[in-house]
């Protein structure tokens, strides 16, 4: 078989995988009766055989991501800083615990991949005590890392087995310090990918490192203007089968008290997807106070949510866009609020871009801006139908 001189890029998602070469991207629905490696080989074996191992580049979000429990002493500094670093390191599932409430907290039942403990600038009086040790006895975790004040370091080190100690994420000016924790979490994520049997097998077709998809997407953002006519501040919405990621210009953040090295942050809606997380998406939609008005506006009723048709998928994807915008608006008190009133561009990517038309997306964004923000104009909407963002990110990471 003749060798092709170009690159072959593969993205393994939870519902689809896609293969890109020579500027063209094809998407395949995953066959869940076989493992990822066999599925990729069965569908694309011929094209893969045309490339050398070092010309094949793979990223994956199919490992489900790492689960994280963050324990901090304040919501707006230690917990917020650690959460920001975790999201930007590709972590998907994040629970938080305010230390002052540890006595009444119920430990999570599932196994946590990594517990992060943070709190205080370097020189403060002790912030953690035996209550933390008692609580941790009830938590099943694989890794634990301390990124808090200097005073508690020895106490925690001598009382918690396998505790990894990194530099404090809060510096002495109360600013975020992200490098060490970010590197630690990114490596943990990489090890998790490699450790997963299904992903491990993919190394038989590539000699390059397999990165996480969110990391790849985030790396493309500073150069997004080379692809599309976008204006800062912008928001990238990546709706997939299991989760929805957003990447946003940090200028959009309300009450911004974090100054990071990157101008773009990431946030994950872990139960907002149109296939694997369909049930929780429907549940979330039904609990939104505007959903019936929205369905009426789209000229359907709630029965559509139970159907298995293309129309139903279209409506679900529109609902997902609405819910994402709603949850980051000032109407919601979740992790972050964005100034959607100054948003200039929305870029839609992921599986949703293959299904929704420009009109479908315009319509839902228009409803949101009119109903929630009382605006008559909406940001420019760009649909990344050919997954150019992902391709650009792959090129940035594996710089050619």
């Amino acid at each position, binding site marked *: 078989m003749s060798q092709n001189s170009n690159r072959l890029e593969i993205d393994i998602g939870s519902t689809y995988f896609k293969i890109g070469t020579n500027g063209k991207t094809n998407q395949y629905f995953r066959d869940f009766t076989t493992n990822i490696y066999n599925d990729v080989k069965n569908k694309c074996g011929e094209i893969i055989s045309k490339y050398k191992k070092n010309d094949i580049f793979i990223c994956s979000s199919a490992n489900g991501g790492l689960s994280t429990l963050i324990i901090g*002493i304040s919501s*707006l*500094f230690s917990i917020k800083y650690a959460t920001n670093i975790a999201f930007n390191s590709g972590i998907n599932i994040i629970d938080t615990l305010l230390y002052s409430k540890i006595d009444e907290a119920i430990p999570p039942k599932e196994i946590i991949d990594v517990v992060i403990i943070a709190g205080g*600038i370097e020189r403060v009086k002790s912030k953690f005590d035996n209550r933390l040790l008692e609580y941790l006895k009830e938590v099943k975790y694989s890794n634990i890392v301390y990124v808090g004040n200097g005073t508690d370091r020895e106490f925690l080190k001598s009382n918690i087995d396998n505790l990894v100690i990194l530099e404090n994420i809060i510096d002495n*000016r109360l600013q975020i310090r992200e490098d060490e924790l970010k590197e630690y979490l990114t490596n943990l994520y990489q090890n998790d990918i490699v450790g997963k049997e299904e992903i491990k097998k993919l190394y038989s077709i590539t000699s390059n490192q397999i990165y996480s998809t969110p990391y790849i997407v985030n790396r493309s953002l500073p150069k997004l203007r080379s692809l599309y006519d976008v204006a800062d501040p912008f928001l990238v919405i990546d709706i997939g089968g299991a989760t929805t990621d957003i990447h946003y210009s940090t200028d959009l953040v309300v009450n911004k*008290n974090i100054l990071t090295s990157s101008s773009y942050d990431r946030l994950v809606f872990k139960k907002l997807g149109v296939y694997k997380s369909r049930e929780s998406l429907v549940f979330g939609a039904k609990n939104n106070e505007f959903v019936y008005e929205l369905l009426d506006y789209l000229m359907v009723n709630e029965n559509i949510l139970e159907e298995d048709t293309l129309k139903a998928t279209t409506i679900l994807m529109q609902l997902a866009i609405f819910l994402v915008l709603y949850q980051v608006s000032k109407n919601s008190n979740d992790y972050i609020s964005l100034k959607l009133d100054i948003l200039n561009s929305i870029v839609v990517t992921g599986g949703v871009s293959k299904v929704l038309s420009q009109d479908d997306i315009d319509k839902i964004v228009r409803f949101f801006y009119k109903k929630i923000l009382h605006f008559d104009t909406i940001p420019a909407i760009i649909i990344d139908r050919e997954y150019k963002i992902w391709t650009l990110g792959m090129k940035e990471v594996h710089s050619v």
Partner: protein
Amino acid sequence: MRVVTGVVGNDIHVVANRLIEISLKERGFEVFNLGVNTYLEEFIDAVIETDANVLLISSLNGEAEGWSRDLLFLKSRFDLDGVLFVIGGNLSVGEAKEEEIIPKYKAYGYDLVFHQVDLNVGLDIIEDTLKGKR
């Protein structure tokens, strides 16, 4: 001694904020300046993260009254014994009598209240109060 300071609410009086920071540093305080447009919750959280001895909130446009009403509630959620809570600036919208304003803000949970008081006079009182507390 550590001080957390900043301007509360939708108030962008950054010059006054910088003057307060400089004056505090001149007097030897370690200052954590949260800047303008700061929420009350952020002030409290900053005190917790830094073990600050003083929280010095300023307000120039009179908005502080609306923003201060949750102070007692927020203080009740954490162990903040020993922290000196101070507010200063122009503490009312329009004309108001000092003898009405000071009790009102003290009822909100502030230990010291300076309405239209010279900065250095206020800082002298803070230092004297801290000496008394030690």
